[in-house]
């Protein structure tokens, strides 16, 4: 019993249950003492869930170090040498462990979100309602969106955490305790988010627009709270990434000698550090509107429903760049390795990440062309949105330049990189019709948007994410993922996904709205929907192959401790897996990162101690 309790995760979960119960008790008690109706489920559950999350973080021990510091004691560095596998199930301060924890959480969340999608995709195979009620459909559809978004944010954090310190030659992140805290905040947040299903669900989509979200069942409060807490975790983790990249670089690693992934991560972190606060704020304002009757978005009280949309999209549009910039960074990182050529126009690619991030702050209004916002805002938002094409174009042409006259090889990570480029191209090209107002009025809130969005997400995140897993798996575990299974995964997933997203766009153009549980047979899109459902199952089968591959390779994969891909990146210059504090000897940067094809050039040189 004690042994189970010593596992951090179990302890955290027990404390979360306790915290939730205590929170519900306290709130009901206070209401009783004040002479109000004691049982008000909405406030009780919100307060309970909030306290539950705090108890979780305390119970697992993510704040132990800070409590020690605050009470005037030394907070020693944890010696994790002999912890074995337990490191992964509790608070560890090692960025590589936290990175892998993030990775596993991300996979879990995306499997949950993905199975929601499979459920309602199956429902859509035919007109009429088959096996879901309207409420179930709406809840699944809404949660699919947000669970996937949190899953992607967590996945982005996984690679930033795992790779950046190794790439820049640091022992760890700048603030290891904050790093652990940020991760362990996301775990209870995800639990709260998914618990909304148990509290009646909600029917608002992931956008949670008021006044609809003010009328939804209590589940929506868990959704808002979960996202706010997860957002807090993201903010702290991006703060850490920025500080690390600014302050912890090895000797000689100047800005334009950074691995390109670090540039993408920096741009991403700038966005999530600042803009995330506004989605938190907008969601909290609706929470307060529900709890205390504050009429921010209630027209009957003079409130403005459009204000919510501005606050919401100010984050939620740049959020898309949060998802894709690290993914595009991974593409730029891996292409030179497999083309055996320098990254074409390194500086342009690096700066284009920041270009996308900066323009990304100025385009949120294009989600609101049909919303009834001030008419004069439409044109400037149209122009700023179109401008995104310029830095994005730079990235595409740089990738082509990198491939040109290379000696290209096609192992599994490269396949995923190439699929990422093609799918992101589809997503990118279908963007401009959404930017020009007149065409967007036809497209907005239809399946066209769903298709466009899934293309950018898969191209900019999912495919590079799998490429990264196949590529860095040997670094993490010392074993390779199986190539054959990897190829099966790839060929199941890629054609099916392209079919799925292309058909989504087609049925959207023909008049199928997004977020509907049932569709009009007279639209003539029933067959397309059936094909899409089949494609969905093929993707799921691909993911299943990947999971089998991962579990199998963890134990039986081909042993790979060396520089598997013949890469120049620092982390591959030492044997896998990495020791706890990364490099035994510090290194110095003496050349350019991607000088493949330049004989006798070196990127880094380890400093021999005298």
């Amino acid at each position, binding site marked *: 019993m004690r042994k189970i309790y010593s596992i951090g995760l179990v302890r955290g979960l027990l404390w979360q249950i306790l915290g939730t119960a205590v929170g519900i008790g306290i709130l009901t008690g206070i209401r009783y003492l004040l002479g109000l109706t004691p049982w008000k489920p909405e406030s009780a559950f919100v307060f309970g869930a909030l306290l539950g999350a705090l108890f979780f973080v305390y119970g697992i021990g993510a704040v132990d170090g800070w409590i020690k510091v605050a009470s005037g004691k030394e907070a020693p560095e944890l010696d994790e040498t002999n912890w074995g596998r337990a490191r992964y199930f509790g608070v560890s301060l090692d960025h590589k462990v936290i990175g892998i924890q993030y990775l596993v959480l991300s996979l879990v969340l995306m499997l949950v979100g993905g199975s929601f999608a499979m459920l309602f995709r199956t429902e859509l195979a035919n007109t009429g309602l088959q096996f879901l009620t309207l409420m179930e459909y709406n809840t699944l559809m809404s949660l699919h969106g947000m669970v996937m978004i949190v899953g992607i944010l967590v996945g982005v954090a996984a690679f930033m955490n795992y790779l950046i310190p190794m790439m820049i030659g640091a022992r760890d992140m700048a603030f290891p305790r904050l790093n652990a805290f940020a991760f362990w905040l996301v775990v209870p947040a995800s639990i709260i988010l998914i618990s909304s299903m148990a509290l009646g669900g909600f029917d608002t989509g992931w956008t949670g627009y008021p006044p609809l979200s003010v009328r939804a069942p209590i589940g929506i409060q868990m959704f808002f709270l979960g996202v706010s807490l997860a957002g807090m975790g993201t903010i702290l983790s991006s703060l850490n990434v920025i500080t690390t990249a600014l302050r912890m670089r090895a000797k000689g690693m100047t800005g334009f000698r950074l691995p390109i992934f670090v540039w993408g991560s920096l741009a991403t972190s700038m966005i999530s550090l600042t803009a995330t*606060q506004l989605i938190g704020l907008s969601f909290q304002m609706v929470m*307060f509107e529900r709890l205390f009757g504050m009429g921010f978005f209630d027209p009957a009280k*003079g409130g403005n429903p459009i204000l919510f949309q501005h606050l919401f999209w100010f984050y939620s549009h740049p959020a898309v760049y949060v998802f894709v910039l690290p993914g595009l960074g991974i593409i730029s990182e891996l292409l030179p390795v497999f083309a055996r050529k320098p990254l074409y126009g390194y500086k342009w690619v690096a700066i284009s990440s920041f270009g996308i991030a900066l323009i990304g702050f100025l385009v949120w209004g294009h989600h609101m062309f049909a919303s009834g916002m001030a008419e004069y805002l439409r044109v400037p938002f149209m122009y700023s949105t179109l401008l995104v094409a310029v830095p994005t174009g730079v990235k595409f042409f740089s990738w082509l330049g990198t491939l040109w006259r290379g000696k290209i090889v096609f192992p599994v990570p490269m396949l995923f990189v190439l699929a990422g480029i093609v799918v992101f191209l589809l997503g990118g090209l279908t963007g401009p019709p959404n930017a020009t107002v007149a065409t967007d009025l036809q497209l907005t809130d239809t399946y066209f948007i769903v298709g466009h969005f899934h293309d950018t997400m898969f191209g900019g995140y999912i495919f590079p994410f799998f490429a990264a897993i196949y590529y860095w798996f040997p670094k993490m575990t010392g074993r390779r993922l199986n190539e054959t299974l990897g190829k099966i995964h790839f060929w199941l997933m890629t054609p099916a996904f392209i079919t799925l997203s292309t058909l989504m766009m087609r049925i959207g153009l023909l008049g199928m709205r997004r977020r509907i549980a049932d569709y009009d047979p007279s639209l003539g899109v029933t067959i397309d929907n059936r094909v899409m459902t089949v494609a969905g199952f093929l993707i799921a089968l691909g993911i299943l192959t990947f999971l089998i591959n991962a579990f199998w390779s963890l134990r039986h994969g081909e042993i790979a401790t060396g520089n598997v891909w013949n890469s120049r990146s620092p982390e591959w210059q030492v044997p896998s897996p990495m020791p706890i504090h990364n490099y035994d000897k510090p290194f110095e940067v003496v050349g350019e990162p991607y000088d493949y094809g330049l004989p006798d050039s070196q990127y880094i040189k380890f400093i021999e101690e005298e």
Partner: protein
Amino acid sequence: MEHQTKSSAMQLGLLVFGALAILTAVEFAIALTTNLWQVLAVIPFIKAGLVLYYYMHISRLFENDEDVDKESFAYKLATNRIGLWLFLLSDMFIFGGLMISRINLLGLTRPDLIQYLGLGVTTILLISSFFANRAEVSMESGDRRQFLVSISITMSLGILFLLGVLGVEWRLAPFGPSTNLAGAIFYIMTGFHAFHVFSGVIFLAIVLRNGAHGLYSSEKHWGVEASVVYWHFVDVVWFFFYPALYLIGSLAK
């Protein structure tokens, strides 16, 4: 970083406080007389600039330390500073969002509040900022007794501010959060701010306790610096919230 002598640093602190006090008085006078919202909108930026530069030492972020050993205390201190300021930058977006909501929903109207109470709590917070600065200066020059006194005063004033806003203003306000928009905006803005003041008080209490145990020295006192900078930040936020809630515009229905 060149060391100022303690007395000149204290004088500078007092001078800045004087300027802030005069600007606040000007704000109040304008609000009572002409109510030029353009001026009322500009003054907080001047006040914030003064505090950012003289009290929060924003220039310390840009000190060059390329050659310093990365394991040294000085280098880690500078790293910590960047972390703290990034956090403040992020936090700024919440308050910015609240301000935008207020401007969008209320425009040139304001909630019906007790003017002298508003001026009172603003003054309290201003004085507390002065003592926070004094505490930091004292610590830098190694005057522990002065440091403990100043930090206690800062903390007490912080608690007094909370009592003034949550205990008095919230109770006396002629509206509840659900009465009208002005009420909703008032409660959410003061609520978010009070939450930050409250966390600031806790940080100060921790610093006070550890300071009393002699954990800080004139060279190593990151805890003191962090909590004081955070305290000033909370004060800067109030520079903007005070005119937004109390001064600008005519009374909302």
